[in-house]
């Protein structure tokens, strides 16, 4: 057991790099995911992650499989879409998720078309499912940098973000903090998706963001609790996924997301807060308390 856990990481540098990258991602993406889930924007994160693909593909067409070029392209495309959708939601009656649903389909089609004009099927697979076992220095720096920026941003914006979530009108009436908070939240979300794109590809980038956040809902009730559990779930899923992929020759990205999915399933069944098994028990101390 211990050997299975440490062996591959001790033996292979690429496994250690994958582990470091995934742990960095586990620190930053799940807290953002918690807020996305609480704001009922989980679908939107999916749409945003797809919007990144054509941007990254454009970078790929210009400079090949280069991390800086693909990241710049992805950031640009993701930010554009996120900010546009944010403005549309603020200025019109169209809800944010509705305007994003359109981008979702167009982006993935455009991305696949762009990559296919120049690249091979292997390149396309990299785009769609990531290359967590082939993270180079640049990719690792990106993941670590994004994690740092995200944690600093969370510390700065936490209070405003919470207020914006609970009562959006309140901040809007108190000055420009509301727009700044909302737009910077979208920006940080895109940043995390671009980083996750390196490791997990466009189709799974959202996985380490949303699955741990959803699983955490079954264990914690306070916001700090949710964030802590989500980070823990993501980290455990990363380690488990990498080990499983090593032992059984599974593709690593999907193995990590499947591990997170397994934790989500177990949480749904056995979770302390509203898990199915608990809910089924008679006389549970449930939501009816205190009123």
């Amino acid at each position, binding site marked *: 057991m211990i050997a299975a856990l440490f062996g591959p990481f001790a033996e292979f540098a690429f496994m250690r790099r994958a582990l470091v990258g995934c742990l960095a991602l586990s620190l930053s993406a799940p807290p953002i995911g918690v807020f996305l889930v*609480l704001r009922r924007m989980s679908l939107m994160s999916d749409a945003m992650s797809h919007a990144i693909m054509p941007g990254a593909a454009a970078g790929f067409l210009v400079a090949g499989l280069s991390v800086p070029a693909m990241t710049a392209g992805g950031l640009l495309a993701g930010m554009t879409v996120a900010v546009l959708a944010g403005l549309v939601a603020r200025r*019109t*009656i169209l809800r944010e998720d509705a305007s994003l649903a359109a981008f979702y389909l167009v982006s993935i089609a455009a991305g696949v078309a762009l990559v296919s004009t120049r690249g091979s099927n292997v390149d396309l697979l990299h785009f769609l499912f990531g290359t967590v076992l082939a993270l180079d220095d640049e990719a690792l720096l990106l993941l670590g940098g994004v994690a740092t920026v995200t944690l600093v941003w969370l510390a*700065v*914006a936490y*209070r*405003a973000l*919470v*207020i914006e*979530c*609970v*009562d*959006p*009108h*309140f*901040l*809007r*009436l*108190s*000055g420009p*903090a509301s727009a700044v908070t909302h737009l910077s939240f979208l920006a940080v979300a895109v940043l995390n998706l671009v980083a996750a794109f390196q490791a997990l590809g466009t189709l799974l980038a959202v996985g380490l963001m949303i699955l741990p956040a959803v699983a955490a809902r079954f264990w*914690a*009730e*306070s*916001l700090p*609790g*949710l964030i802590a559990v989500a980070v823990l779930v993501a980290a455990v899923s990363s380690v488990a996924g990498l080990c499983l992929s090593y032992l059984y020759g599974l593709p690593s990205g999907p193995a990590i997301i499947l591990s997170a999915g397994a934790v989500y399933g177990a949480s749904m069944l056995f979770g302390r807060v509203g898990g199915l098994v608990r809910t089924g028990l008679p006389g549970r101390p449930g*939501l009816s*308390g*205190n*009123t």
Partner: protein
Amino acid sequence: MTSTAGVAGAPLLSFHDLTLGYGARASLRGLTGEVRFGDLLAVVGPNGAGKSTLLKGIVGVAALLGGRIERHRAAAIRDIAYLPQRAEIDTSFPISVQDFVAMGLWRRIGAWRRLGRAEDLRVDAAIAQVGLQGFEAVPIGRLSGGQVQRMLFARTVVQDAAVILLDEPCAALDERTAADLMTLVREWGREGRTVLATLHDLDQVRASFPRTLILSGGVPVAWGETARILTPDNLGRSRGAAGPEAGSPGASAPLREGPALRLAAAAP
């Protein structure tokens, strides 16, 4: 306590042929009149009369489509406490009553400063004032509708604003909660604050609000002293303009559209 920054009776907000709405659609048209310092003004009328739109227009959430709002001293949007309808609060968000009420300190402490002892005491005092002692650490999702409304009032107390807008503060409340909250409104009036509230229950209006504005179908029907304005005639016109449900003009029954919902165990 904030200075209420004005002499009672001096003009606070002047509406000049005001038209407000959402997008290009006007929900309130042709309102002219003046809110004065220290007014306790009830805005009544059937659903769709434009009551909430007026409050949202004052704080800049509904769009100004025509006319203008003249803001006299202490009536800048940032100095107004706006209490939204309960439905606009995401009560499933995992924060405690204490944290929610502390939102009222935003103008004072902003995004980063920590809550000092004085702030903690203010928050606790406000929670006690609305009768929610013992609920400080409870997640807001576990509160009943009446308790959520009490909590919103506590946040407004903490905001300590000279001008307070209340959107449907008594909708679907049990009688005791409504009475408690109206007592708080009268207290705000004695402290020299200006309060605008949209209401359905005319008994509450008569008991607590010296001035009334009646709206109907997006246009003003009457505005002035409550006793003089809430006449069977005006109420009949208000209901008549609202549509088929027009009751007998002589009835002084509440404007509310249906039986008031009674929330069980709303008061702690």
